[in-house]
């Protein structure tokens, strides 16, 4: 009659017959107890699936290391990291990744200098100033920027921005560090903007009202109250933006110029780490030194982004805004 009567309510030794009489499926494995058993199996399966993310992360780390480590038999860690010559196909080859490292750092720093202010300013505008209808247009627009495939942005950089830069600044090539930074900045703005906006929005309204009631203007309220209160969120956003631009591949592959040289000006063509991996993997002999060196570059990229993500998570977790009390 009542399928939810459990065996705990009616003691099994006394009540089993009664339960069986009243409600035959309960003890037959088809009804309540059966679904309990199924519940345990399902739970285990779901647990295994959830664990998969962690296992994949571990597998990525292991496989990158296994394929990347053999290069250290060929060159020392110091020579690999600080060697100034990347000529993997020469005879004898030289595997110094310093020019690639310098290019990656250069491109990332320059792009962050552009994207962080723009992204944060857009976030402030969306969260604090824009009228609701403007916000309803701007937010999807920012999301669409995030959705643009990187290969399309790289393509745009090649066919439009490169000739423009070349003519405007009278350069030998428009495919250079500056162009790559511009395109990367455009790509990381949505990351920075969305996360900053969330942080700004989570600042409690009474803080703003208090500031305005004391006679501060809207701008003063934003600068002295809202931004300091959401600073941890904004820095998380910037760090994730950085981590995004370090690893971005297609843009730097297509517009950075591809020269494995240490850049001396922002208009030098460069070859950041992801570009090197993408461009050279196809021609690197399977499990040769070059192949292992490219995997070692992958390890470096992996560690870089992982460290940045962990810093971001740490800041976000530690300075979590909980009401007005933590200010």
């Amino acid at each position, binding site marked *: 009659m009542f399928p939810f009567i459990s065996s705990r309510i009616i003691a099994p030794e006394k009540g089993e017959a009664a339960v069986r009489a009243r409600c035959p499926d309960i003890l037959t494995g088809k009804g309540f107890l059966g*679904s*309990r058993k199924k*519940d345990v199996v399902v739970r285990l*399966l*779901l*647990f295994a699936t*959830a*664990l*998969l*993310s*962690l*296992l*994949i*992360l571990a*597998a*990525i780390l292991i*496989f*990158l290391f296994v*394929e990347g480590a053999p290069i250290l038999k060929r060159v020392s860690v110091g020579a690999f990291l600080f060697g100034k010559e990347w000529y993997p196909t020469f005879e004898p080859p030289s595997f110094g990744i310093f020019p690639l490292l310098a290019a990656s750092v250069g491109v990332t720093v320059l792009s962050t200098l552009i994207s962080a202010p*723009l992204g944060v*300013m*857009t976030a*402030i*505008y969306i969260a604090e*100033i*824009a009228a609701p209808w403007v916000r309803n247009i*701007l937010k999807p*627009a*920012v999301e*669409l*920027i995030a*959705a*643009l*495939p*990187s*290969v*399309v942005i*790289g393509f745009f950089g090649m*066919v439009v921005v490169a000739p423009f830069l070349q003519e405007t600044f009278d350069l030998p090539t428009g495919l250079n560090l500056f162009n790559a930074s511009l395109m990367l900045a*455009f790509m990381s*703005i949505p990351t920075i*903007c969305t996360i900053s906006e969330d942080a700004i929005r989570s600042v409690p309204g009474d803080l703003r009202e208090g500031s305005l009631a004391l006679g501060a*203007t809207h*701008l003063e309220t934003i600068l002295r109250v809202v931004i300091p209160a959401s600073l941890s969120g904004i820095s998380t956003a910037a760090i994730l933006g950085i981590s995004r631009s370090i*690893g971005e*591949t*297609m843009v730097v*592959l*297509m517009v950075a110029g591809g020269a494995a040289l240490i850049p001396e000006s922002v208009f030098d063509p460069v070859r950041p780490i*992801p570009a090197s*991996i*993408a461009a050279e*993997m*196809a021609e690197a002999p399977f499990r040769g030194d070059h192949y292992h060196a490219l995997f070692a570059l*992958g390890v470096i990229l*992996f560690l870089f*982004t*992982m460290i940045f*993500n962990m810093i971001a*998570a740490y800041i976000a977790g530690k300075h979590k805004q909980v009401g007005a009390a933590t200010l």
Partner: protein
Amino acid sequence: MDGLKRGGFGDDAPRGRARFRAWKQGLAFTALRFAALINCLALAVIVCFLFANGWKAISWSFITQPPVNSMTQGGIFPCIVGTFLLSLGAMAVALALGTASAIYLHEYARPGLLVKAIKFGVNNLAGIPSIVFGLFGLAFFVTWFKFGVSLLSGILTLGILILPILIGSAEEALAAVPQSYREASLALGASRWQTIYGVVLPAAAPGILTGAILGVGRAAGETAAIMFTAAVYFIPHLPGSLFDQVMALPYHIYVLASAGTQIDLTRPIQYGTALVLIVLVLGTNLAAILYRAKLRR
């Protein structure tokens, strides 16, 4: 300025300062508005540019024919097919795994070290660059599992790449299901799994679907993850099995635009391909965004 000069003369000073503060605020807000405008303009310029240059290349035969004359003429049909197979396959893989993970994390798991560890895994997976997924796919699926450069390797690599997106949106969707639904179902005697399967999942389905659409969009535009695992420059036939290599739209653009032999000759095809790709990607994303906005209302 007025206020500063008259310094001590009573009422005018605060009024002047107030005017200065208002002026400063106006200036700053203009700068903020300008920053927001730059982003929108950049998006508009890119999209309009691709439409303006791409629509000339688009024709019925461009979409339905394979390339001919060593890629300089003909259409991009095999690339469209390849991108569809890759992104839908990846979505199917990630939808199954992502929904199951989210159900465990949201409905079963008790907060603790293990859940923290799993969330750490998901968060970090989301931050890994796509080229690293490509390397992993090459070492793991292509080499270790001996799937070779194939549709299957590409689907699995893209599947784990979009997995965090699917887990995130599924968790959000589950969290939005009112607790009273679960309680009502449990009170009627349903088991936990019956409750989840019969009540919670149907209620969360639209949100999970939004995540799946976003995942398709992301997978469709992804290049670096498939360049070592699935995509090839040219293959004379459509993929007949999971172990065939495929052509794909993003890789096609990259190869024609920067690694091909006749870059200038194939420019119209590049524009056309780029247009087809962004229509596909922005279309799916726009659909997801609008659908989500409707759900939240």
